[in-house]
C-alpha cells in the first residue's frame, strides 16, 4: 500500500512552519513586552514598569473611548444576533423557496464587499439622514456595526440549527406544543450555545473595527481603535501597547469562551 502524502515529512516543512509562526506572533509578543517598558520609547527597553497601564487607565480619553466601544459593541452585537437568529431560522427551517440562494448571499454580503466601500456608502447615507433629522448620536455607529456583524453572528447560529435533529421539533409538535412553544422550549435552548458564540464573535468584530467607524463617527465619537489610530499620528508612547495588550487579552478570553461553547453540548 502506498504511503499517504504526509506534508510534515517534506524537506523544509519544519523551518517554514516555524518561520510562519514567528512572523505571526513575534510582533505581537514585542508589542506585549514593550507595553511593560519603563521608558517612553516603543522600541528601546528601559526596564519593567506598569506605568503605561496606569497612564492608560487614568487617561480620560481612553476611558471614554473604551466605554463607547463597549456600548457600541454590546448594542450592535445584540441587534446583529437577533437579526442573525431570525435569518438563520428563515434559511433553515422552511421549505426551499425561490430566491433563497440570493438571500443567503445577501446576508453574507458584508463579508465580500470591500469594507471601504461599505464605509463610504454609509458615510454618504448617514450624512443625508443627519441633514434631514439633525440627529448626531451613537446610533449611526451602532447600526453600522450591527450591519457588518450580522454575517459573523449568522454563521455559527446557522451551523447549529442545521446540525440540530429536526425530529426533536416534530416530537414537540406531536406532544401538543404550538409552533411558538416548540421554539421556546426546544429550539431555543438547543440553539443557545450557537447564539452565544455568534454574539461573542459579533462583539469582538465590532470592538475591533476601524475603517467603518472612522468614516461613520461624528466628532468626539472615538472608539478605542480609532483613538489609538489618532494617537499614532501624534507621539507614540507604550500607552498604545498597553491598550492593545488589554484588548488582546479581552479578545483571547472571548475567543477561548467561544471555542468551548461551540464544542460543548453537541
Amino acid at each position, binding site marked *: 500500500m502506498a504511503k499517504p502524502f504526509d506534508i510534515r515529512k517534506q524537506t523544509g516543512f519544519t523551518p517554514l512552519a516555524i518561520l510562519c509562526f514567528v512572523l505571526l506572533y513575534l510582533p505581537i509578543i514585542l508589542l506585549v513586552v514593550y507595553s511593560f517598558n519603563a521608558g517612553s520609547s516603543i522600541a528601546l527597553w528601559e526596564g519593567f514598569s506598569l506605568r503605561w497601564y496606569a497612564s492608560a487607565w487614568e487617561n480620560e480619553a481612553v476611558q471614554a473611548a473604551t466605554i463607547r466601544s463597549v456600548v457600541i459593541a454590546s448594542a450592535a452585537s445584540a441587534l446583529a444576533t437577533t437579526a442573525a437568529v431570525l435569518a438563520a431560522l428563515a434559511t433553515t427551517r422552511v421549505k426551499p423557496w425561490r430566491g433563497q440562494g440570493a438571500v443567503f448571499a445577501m446576508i453574507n454580503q458584508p463579508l465580500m464587499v470591500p469594507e471601504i466601500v461599505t464605509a463610504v456608502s454609509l458615510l454618504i447615507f448617514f450624512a443625508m439622514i443627519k441633514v434631514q433629522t439633525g440627529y448626531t448620536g451613537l446610533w449611526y455607529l451602532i447600526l453600522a456595526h450591527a450591519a457588518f456583524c450580522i454575517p459573523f453572528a449568522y454563521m455559527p447560529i446557522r451551523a447549529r440549527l442545521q446540525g440540530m*435533529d429536526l*425530529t*426533536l421539533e*416534530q*416530537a*414537540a*409538535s*406531536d*406532544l*401538543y*406544543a*404550538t*409552533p411558538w*412553544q*416548540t421554539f421556546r*422550549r*426546544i429550539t431555543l*435552548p*438547543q440553539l443557545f450555545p450557537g447564539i452565544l458564540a455568534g454574539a461573542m464573535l459579533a462583539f469582538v468584530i465590532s470592538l475591533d473595527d476601524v475603517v467603518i467607524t472612522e468614516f461613520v463617527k461624528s466628532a468626539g465619537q472615538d472608539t478605542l481603535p480609532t483613538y489609538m489610530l489618532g494617537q499614532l499620528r501624534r507621539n507614540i508612547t507604550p500607552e498604545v501597547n498597553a491598550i492593545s495588550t488589554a484588548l488582546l487579552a479581552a479578545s483571547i478570553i472571548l475567543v477561548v469562551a467561544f471555542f468551548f461553547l461551540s464544542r460543548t*453540548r453537541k
Partner: protein
Amino acid sequence: MIAIENVTKIYGEGKSAFRALDDVSVTIKDNEFFTLLGPSGCGKTTLLRTIAGFVDPSSGSIRLGGKDILQSPPYKRPVNTVFQNYALFPHMTVAQNIAFGLEMLGKPKREVKATVEEMLELVRMTPMADRQTGQISGGQQQRVALARALAPRPQVLLLDEPLSALDFKLRKDMQLELKRLQTETGITFVFVTHDQEEALTMSDRIAVMNAGKIRQIGGARDIYDQPAERFVADFIGDTNFLDVEVLEITGDAARVRLAGGAETTARGAAEAGTGMGAATLATRPEHARLVPVGQGVMEGLLSQVVYFGTDTHYHVTLSDGAAFTLRQQNTPDMAHAFTQGDRVGIHLAPGVGQLLKD
C-alpha cells in the same frame, strides 16, 4: 377508530413524481395492535406520518373517531408518536421529557407529577427519573420515548420502527413489553416495521404494504397461511413457488397437477380466481417433508443441508431444475436421515398450499 380513505401522497411533479401512497384505504379499530409491514420505501412510514400530521396527503381523508383530522396541525391531533430515533429532548431529564406533553396540554402541576410517576412505573424507569437522556442506555431511551408518548393518553399511539436500533435480545423483550403496554393501556397502537417476525408476534392485524399500496390485511395466521398474492407470500416467511395446472375446483379447494405429473390438493382457488389451467402454488417449507424416492409427489437432488439447532433446512433441486426448500424440526427419533447428494422424494401436506393469482 381511524378511518383512512383513498389516501394518496405524491412527491414531486411530472416525470419525477413518486407515489409514496397510492389510494390507501384501511380502518383501524379501537384498542387494536395494528401493524404496517413492508420493505423500505413501501409507504408505511409515510402513512404513519400522515396520521401524525407531518405529511399532508395529496388526496383522501383520515377520520379519527368520526372527526376529520387532516385539517388539524400535529399539535392538535390526539395521537402521539414514538420516533425511530426516539427524539428525546437532550436538554431535559427523563421525568421532564415524560412531562412535556402533559405540560403543553396545560394539565395542573399535581396531575402532571402523578402521571409522570405512573408512567415511570409503567415502563420500569422510576430510578432513572432525574437522569439526563444522554446518560441512559438505548433500551432505556426506548422506554422513556414510550412513556413520553403514552403520558398524555392519546387515542392512538404511532410507533415508527421503534425496535430497529435495539440488539436482538433487547428487541425480544421489548416486543413482549409493547404488547403488555398495549393491553394494559387499551390504547390503539399503529406499529410500523419491516421485520415480519415482529409483526407476526405482536399484532392483532397486519397490513402488508408494497409500492404505496396495501396488498393484504389480516391476522398473523391469515397472512402467513393464506397470502393473497405472490409479494405477500414472498415477503412473509419463506415460500416455495411451484408451477401447477389446476384440474378441478370445488369452492375454495382445487385439485392440481405438479410439474412431475403427481397430483395434490390446494386452497385459495376462489380468492385467487385462478380458474383452470396454469397457476402458481405457494407452499411453506414446514408444510413439506422429505421421504424416500418414490413415496412423495415430487423428486429431486438434496443439494444442501443447513443445521439450525431447533430445525434443519433442506435445499432440494427438483427434477425440472426448480429450487425447493424444506424445514424440518430436529427430533431425537428422526426417521430418515438424509445427506447431501441423496436423491429424495418430497411429500406435500395436502390442502395447505395456497394458489396465487399472477
